[in-house]
């Protein structure tokens, strides 16, 4: 089967090369049959990679350890679902997943638009096939998932326990879906520029893909943040780590593009912006894919060392994309001229332009901070890094302006707004914001953190505007159709999913930032060492180390891990709040002869079992780090005694160690967090993605036709004849 897999990848590589050549030939020579052939080649690519992916997955599910990738990333004791996900936990598996997603989405977009955009499609196909060539080239020549081992091991090394979490299973596919979907508007933008057909048509056909890309990439980012908060022992959800930043950058420019494309569709403006944004987003998506698997930046995620084939190949691709993009935009600047000029600063066009600027500025800040070690090395010779405080210094004010814009943008009409109108529309939200400001200042200590207070005020403004929009829209709809409010609301949203989905997204983002501001600025965190029975106070809550806990998890007759933990009783003002049982799980190292029978448990991986009491107003979060020295001392002692003992005695010794921990517990170090409003970060994210789903949802044909008919009737009057349009 591995030979079949290898052959399929080689065939896929050949097919992508054919697709590039035939698409370009058919496009240049205007021979449609070659363009159709190249499209069929992309379909074939999807078929080939699907079979290859299936072979890889079957190998994982069948525990076929003759496959090197299975032997190094899975084991017989790995649960089925994680075996499935282990396929993409490796470099080669993740490359195959990326290529497969690319081929699938490319086939879909080419199929849906097979009768359209016939001047642009050949070049778009060539670009998409070009990406396919790149990734299949890596899969064939550098990182094959179908390498086999001549000596088949009886068991694999297993999946890193840190990854045994549902969020970590879907995090890569979500991110990769986002990245690959962003290559679609990139490819069509390149095609439009090459073919010199930069009207809004290429935007409308790729719009859904762009929105889907934004949607999936955003979900991937939030899953990573949630995993970090709930699974790692530091209690934060965002560290401005290079790899986190790498996924955020294309998302920021993608958000800008999603807004800015509306202006091009409506008024033929900002074409240079749109081309540049979409080309930058596609390039940043490749940069994001690259950063995770290179060692060029010091990061918790730096998996592979730099200087290998993959790093060179990616660097070459990114350079080619950047230079090509700049060349295309500069050489086509004459046809990218706006059809109209910006009429007034108080118009939706200029709000969108400002939105573009803010998002690009945020992206630039993130970019500069992420690549600063390389930049400083190039300039000064020393590698230097900036930390989270530097990022926050710039991102926070920009975020504030952004949220403010989400409040202003929807209300200002196109072309030009009058001050009188604006005053009327903003009166209520401004009052809400002012009241929020005053109340927070008086009732809470928000005044101590001016930026947080500013953000709360602005978010209140944005939320009030969104609520007002929904209210006014529903009222207008009721006036037109005499429906009850809930029906009017639903039909209003249904008739304009993009607009109202967008408003829901704005609500979600405002809520998310409220959560971020509160949990960052007003968090209480303590690292404290406690003996059993001792108490400490954090953030107004009392924490008591009640008793130690220890358990052994058995799986398939063997010990999967040892857990040492504690029971913490949390109370506030004398009232019981919760019992939290944080623990640390120790997985044994799989080299049993290198370490002692007991000690090997503490030489493998360790995971934090974080426990929290999540609430609407605050999260109480605890993690534990048992005394490592005590563990090593006791286990070393046991190992000495058990060196020659039979296996059952060794297992009993492990049980004995666990019991000993309970009876003679050493002091343990606890990390305790009280974070206000953290829950709203996740709720805000969910609202955002619900809004995205609403915006993505296609309107039913009947509604579309009805809507078209009414507008068409009015326009027909101008034509001087009645037109019964039913298409």
């Amino acid at each position, binding site marked *: 089967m591995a030979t079949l897999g290898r052959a399929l990848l080689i065939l896929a590589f050949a097919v992508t090369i054919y697709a590039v050549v035939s698409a370009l030939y058919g496009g240049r020579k205007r021979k449609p049959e070659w363009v159709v052939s190249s499209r069929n080649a992309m379909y074939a690519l999807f078929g080939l990679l699907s079979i290859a992916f299936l072979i890889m997955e079957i190998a994982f599910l069948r525990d076929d350890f003759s496959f090197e990738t299975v032997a190094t990333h899975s084991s017989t004791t790995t649960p089925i679902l994680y075996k499935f996900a282990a396929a993409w936990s490796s470099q080669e598996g993740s490359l195959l997943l990326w290529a497969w997603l690319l081929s699938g989405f490319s086939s879909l977009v080419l199929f849906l638009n097979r009768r359209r955009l016939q001047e642009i499609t050949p070049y778009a196909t060539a670009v998409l096939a070009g990406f396919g060539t790149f990734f299949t080239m890596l899969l064939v020549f550098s990182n094959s998932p179908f390498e086999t081992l001549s000596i088949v091991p009886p068991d694999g090394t297993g999946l890193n326990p840190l990854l045994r979490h549902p969020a970590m299973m879907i995090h890569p596919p979500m991110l990769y879906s986002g990245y690959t979907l962003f290559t679609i508007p990139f490819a069509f933008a390149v095609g439009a520029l090459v073919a010199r057909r930069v009207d809004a048509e290429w935007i409308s056909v790729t719009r859904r893909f762009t929105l889907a890309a934004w949607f999936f990439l955003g979900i991937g980012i939030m899953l990573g943040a949630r995993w970090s908060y709930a699974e790692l022992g530091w209690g934060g959800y965002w560290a401005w780590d290079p790899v986190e930043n790498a996924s955020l950058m294309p998302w920021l420019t993608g958000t800008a593009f999603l807004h800015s494309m509306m202006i091009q569709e409506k008024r033929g403006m900002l074409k240079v912006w749109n081309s540049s944004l979409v080309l930058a987003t596609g390039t940043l998506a490749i940069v994001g894919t690259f950063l995770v698997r290179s060692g060029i930046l010091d990061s918790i995620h730096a998996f592979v060392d730099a200087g290998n084939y993959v790093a060179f190949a990616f660097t070459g691709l990114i350079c080619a994309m950047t230079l090509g993009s700049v060349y295309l935009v500069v050489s086509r600047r004459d046809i990218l001229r706006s059809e109209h000029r910006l009429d007034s600063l108080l118009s939706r066009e200029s709000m969108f332009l400002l939105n573009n*600027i803010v998002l690009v500025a945020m992206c630039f800040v993130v970019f500069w901070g992420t690549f600063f070690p390389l930049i400083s090395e190039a300039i000064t010779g020393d590698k230097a890094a900036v930390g989270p405080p530097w990022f926050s210094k710039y991102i926070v004010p920009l975020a504030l302006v952004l949220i403010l814009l989400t409040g202003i943008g929807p209300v200002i009409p196109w072309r030009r707004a009058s001050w009188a109108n604006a005053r009327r529309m903003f009166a209520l939200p401004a009052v809400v914001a002012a009241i929020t400001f005053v109340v927070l200042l008086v009732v809470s200590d928000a005044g101590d953190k001016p930026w947080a207070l500013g953000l709360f005020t602005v978010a209140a403004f944005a939320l009030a505007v969104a609520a007002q929009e929904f209210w006014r829209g529903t009222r207008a709809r009721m006036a037109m159709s005499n429906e009850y409010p809930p029906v009017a609301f639903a039909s209003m949203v249904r008739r304009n999913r993009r607009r109202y989905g967008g408003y829901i997204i704005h609500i979600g983002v405002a809520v998310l930032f409220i959560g971020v501001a509160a949990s960052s600025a007003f968090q209480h965190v303590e*690292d404290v060492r406690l003996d059993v029975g001792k108490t400490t106070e954090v953030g107004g809550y009392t924490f008591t180390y009640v008793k130690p806990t220890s358990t052994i998890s058995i799986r398939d007759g063997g010990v999967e891990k040892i857990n040492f933990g504690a029971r913490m009783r949390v109370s506030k003002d004398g009232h019981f709040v919760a019992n939290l049982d944080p623990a640390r799980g120790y997985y044994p190292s799989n080299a049993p002869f290198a370490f002692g029978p007991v000690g090997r448990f503490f030489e493998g991986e360790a995971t934090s079992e974080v426990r929290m009491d999540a609430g609407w107003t605050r999260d109480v979060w605890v993690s534990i780090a048992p005394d490592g020295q005590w563990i090593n001392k006791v286990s070393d002692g046991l190992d000495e005694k058990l060196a020659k003992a039979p296996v059952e005695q060794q297992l009993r010794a492990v049980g004995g160690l666990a019991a000993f921990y309970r009876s003679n517990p050493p002091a343990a170090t606890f990390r305790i967090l009280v974070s206000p409003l953290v829950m709203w970060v996740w709720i805000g994210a969910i609202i955002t993605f619900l809004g995205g789903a609403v915006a993505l949802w296609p309107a039913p044909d009947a509604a579309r036709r009805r809507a078209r008919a009414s507008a068409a009737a009015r326009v027909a009057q101008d034509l001087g004849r009645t037109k019964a349009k039913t298409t």
Partner: protein
Amino acid sequence: MDPSRKRMIRLVVALTAAVFLASALVYTSFSASSEAKTPSQLLTSAKSGESYELTGKVVKGSIVQHGSTTLFRVRDRDGKQSVAVSYTGAIPDPFREGREVIVNVSKRTATGDTFVGERDSLVTKCPSKFSAEPQST
């Protein structure tokens, strides 16, 4: 004022603001950054009071816990020279001897090779390719 002149002014103002902000950003990044140094570099050129980003591998057998402070040594990736780090804060889950770490440190004013680790700045690199085995070297 005719529209095109208004537009020119707007453009100039916007560009000036952008250049100004970009310069502020670039300037603060150089002043707020911590140089990345290996242990051998730290030993030769560390100035007391300044913060550095130390990268290297945790020396085997060097992890000692004193209360809520952890002491460990960090050595060059491919070398023998090492420095001692005194670190308070949460120890990341993957942290163990032989692994590569990144930690922000500053030199204690006293002489010697002990550095104080900045709270919560300790990052342990995930072992390559997600395998459960710690990689050798």
